């Protein structure tokens, strides 16, 4: 029963969503909209589990003074303080002068931007470490990469207007063609995986205890 019920639920809901794609009638579509809303509610409820798990693991590690335990306390304090401040300010949490906005502007915004900015450094080190020109195809790729990197900045146009035009052509023609091929393959993979899951051919994702490796 423990194995069959989830598979049956998956089959029924999967087939229903598939049918709803083709049937615009409100009899089907309204229920489809409700099902999507239920999914959002269920996911919302899992946030309670998620936060509980986060607190449980980090509080235990802090209590046991495991490695970097001090940062666990910083994490827990950050979570609790931000929640408390946000709730205490009610509807005014989004006012420019609110304490919640201060936390957002002082901590969250700069730290998030900084993490994204690290990409620039990592791209440079990956370019040095890993971009090896060992074949004619890799050489073509490197030439295209040089043209694109120059074409995408004003320097390329200053050297010669051909460079940004070439960069545009590379992106709009060969890149687009290759990407569409990958997308078609990936879309077929999505169909195959989805149908395997819906029909119950693939059961392992739900932890249903199939034997063997």
């Amino acid at each position, binding site marked *: 029963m423990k194995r069959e019920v989830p598979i049956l639920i998956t089959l029924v809901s999967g087939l229903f969503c*598939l049918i709803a794609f*083709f*049937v*615009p*009638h*409100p*009899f089907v*579509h309204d229920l489809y909209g409700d099902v999507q809303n239920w*999914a959002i509610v269920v*996911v919302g409820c*899992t*946030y*309670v*589990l*998620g*936060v509980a*798990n*986060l607190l449980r*693991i980090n509080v*235990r590690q802090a209590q046991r003074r495991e*490695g*970097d335990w001090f940062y666990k306390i910083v994490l827990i304090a950050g979570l609790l303080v931000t929640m408390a401040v946000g709730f205490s300010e009610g509807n005014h949490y989004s006012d420019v002068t609110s304490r919640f906005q201060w936390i957002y502007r002082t901590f969250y915004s700069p*730290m*998030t931007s900084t*993490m*994204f900015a690290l*990409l620039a450094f*990592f*791209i440079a080190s*990956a*370019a040095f*470490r*890993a*971009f090896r020109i060992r074949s004619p195809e890799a050489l073509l790729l490197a030439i295209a990469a040089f043209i694109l990197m120059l074409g995408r900045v004003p320097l390329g146009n200053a050297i010669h207007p051909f460079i940004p035009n070439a960069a545009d052509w590379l992106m709009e023609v060969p890149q687009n063609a290759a*990407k569409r091929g*990958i*997308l*078609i*393959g*990936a879309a*077929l*993979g*999505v*169909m*195959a*995986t989805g*149908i*395997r*899951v819906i029909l119950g*051919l*693939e059961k*392992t*994702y*739900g*932890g*249903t*205890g*199939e034997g*063997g*490796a």
Partner: protein
Amino acid sequence: MLGVERGKAGVHLPAAVSFATCLCSLLLALHVAAFPLKASDTPNDGGGSITLEWTAPQPVAKEWILVRRERGGTFAPVTTIEGTVHSFRDGAVQTGVAYEYQLVAQPTDPQLDSEVSAPTRAVAAWFDRTKVNVLVVAAIFFFLLFFYIRQAESGVRWSFRKIPGLAAIEEAIGRATEMGRGILYVPGVQEIDDIQTIASMILLTKVSRMAAKYETNLLVPTNSPGVYTVAEEVVKSAYGDVGRSDAYRSDQVRYITSEQFAYVAAVNGIMLRERPAANFLLGAFFAESLLLAETGHSVGAIQIAGTANVHQMPFFVVACDYTLIGEEYYAASALLSNDARLLGSLKASDTVKIFLITVIVVGSLLLTFGQSWLTGFFSTQ
């Protein structure tokens, strides 16, 4: 006729006035309602919409006010439309109720107004005919799927090309076991309803079983509570499947945060502290892909990545040891399982791909010679 005496000229004055009035009205009627307004149910929708089309003769009005009434009611304005427009979709009607429409010219000029349209009802369709092409391909896929599954069940075996990344999974776990270090499995940054995340959970089952069998420490940080819930169940069950329930620890799977870059920072921190020997980056990734891959490389981990996000593939190809690109990632679970029925689904998707390639080539040739019916059939817009 009206009781007025005849005039000296012998003409009935009231009769003349009546005749002139009638003539004017007739002439006016001929000029009013200058052009027809066609109203029809908007096809392939769930009702609640009527489409209007018209061709206004020159000179057109600067603007129209579209008015609408239910049968037997009075006209009320709906919207204002520019004079150069020739169609409009009224999406604010009740299904099943008959409506009539008219275009009233602005500035007011009855000679430029349209006729009143015939009463029309919005109807909900049971099938969206614009999706016939999708249904055809889906039907072909289903047919091929069941056909190949039948073949697989009757003993037919196919050969598939080797994907180095898949063969490397067991090698990577073995390496981690030998080095006495752990494995890190990152299931992407999308929710559990994303097909890439579902595919990641399928692969997590296999990786967990191997890790349990080899007694290698496995860590799975997740960025969504939904994914955490499923991943925890997957890992726990996988350990139970190979008889190692005792080895499973509840903190192996943990929810970090839903914020993209906070999650990346946390996972990078785990990599730098725990120094796993093998990293599996399997799922939907965005800007964090290179951040994770480079940090993983810096701690000396062997890295196997897989994603269907086209814009992140180049970063994984450059920075990881093995990369599963697009459909290889989705095929991975079937190939690893070696289950005949799952391999049958792989065969079906390959066959559909050949069919689509044929359609693209034939369609391009036909289009070159001015025949657009094939490309038109496959159009989705």
